[in-house]
């Protein structure tokens, strides 16, 4: 018993030499970037994670309308999710997402996209998604 446990310790110590990497999924970026001002609804919304995550919900809050769910792809774990033709309304659109990170924590964030007909597309220089981890 004791000898078994001792070799377990040694095995562990050896195994650990081959470690480390970081273990937490966060958003790497979105297209369009949060804070963008666009002349019309973008063809798609893309959310990229730094690590595999599982997107569980994507809803858009538009001015004066009830929240609307957006369909997205793929289902399951991925580093990139896409909602095709989100049909954003004129004004300020808040796109809220929720996901399960690789380490099993819920994560969430919001992408703000303003649609202003006739505007020249502007994207903020610095990405400032308001995303929050657990």
């Amino acid at each position, binding site marked *: 018993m004791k000898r078994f446990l001792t070799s377990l310790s040694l095995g562990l110590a050896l195994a650990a030499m081959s470690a480390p990497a970081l273990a937490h999924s966060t958003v790497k970026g979105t297209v369009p970037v949060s804070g963008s001002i666009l002349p019309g609804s973008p063809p798609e919304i893309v959310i990229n994670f730094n690590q595999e995550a599982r997107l569980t919900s994507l809803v858009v809050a538009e001015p004066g309308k009830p929240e609307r769910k957006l369909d997205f792809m793929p289902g399951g774990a991925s580093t990139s999710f896409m909602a095709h033709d989100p049909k954003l309304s004129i004004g300020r659109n808040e796109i809220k997402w929720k996901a*399960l990170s690789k*380490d099993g924590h819920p994560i969430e964030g919001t992408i703000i996209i303003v649609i202003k007909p006739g505007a020249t597309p502007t994207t903020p220089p610095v990405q400032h998604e308001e995303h929050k981890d657990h």
Partner: protein
Amino acid sequence: MLEALAAFAKLMLYAGALSGAGAAFAWASLGQRLGPVGKFAPHIVASGAGLTLLASFATILILIQRLGGEFSPPTISAVIGGPTGFAAGLQLAGAILLLAFARGQGWAWIARVTGGGLVVASFAVNGHAAAVDLVSGIVACVHVLATAWWLGALLLLRPACRQLTGAALDQLVHAFSRIASAVITNLLLAGVLLILTLVDFSHTPWLSPYGQTLAIKVSLATLVLGLALYNKVRLAPRLADDGGAAAITLRRSITAEIGLIAAVVSATSFLTTYTSPHT
């Protein structure tokens, strides 16, 4: 609110898994030396397994709530189809085995150890360490395995201080001590490895909520280890000569040890629910 519930469910999961699986392991390794105290073991195994079942279910339901509260296909598949669901599956299977064979004689101990093994293995597939790679997941699993054996053994040793006397108690405590030294070495080693794997030392980690919670946990753990060492070095040797009085002191000390372990485990459930090593 939901986060607090999640932390509480996690604490219950730890409590159930560590005591249920741990009692199965400790019972198997201490065996006959437990004598009449063996009759407490099925009860601890069964209640730990029952708590594991409940907490595992609750954890899944709370997680679904935290992901938006809808039983939509993406939510269900994310929760059930990923590591979280795999871990819950191992916990359920393990807990059912533990419950089914909690009382069995003879070869039933194999089913109990397997059940406890499945429960403990769930910590290798889900969590901060598991998300790094399989080896780190296994290190976390070893950490939990050692913790489980330790707690399970203490839960049996406590009644033994009253039920056994003289040479019988002395022998049991010695058998415990011998295994405990190796088990606790592994617990510590795995804990240090987890820190080295999870904590990013290039970003003043002790200033982060994770670093601070971890520091509290490790301080509490140091207290338990100190008390354990005291029991081993000072109290255990006295059992042979001045039986009765030493047994009462040992029992009190074991009660304190179990209480401190509960505090460490509470700090851990806060650590793994509210904070993350990488924010």
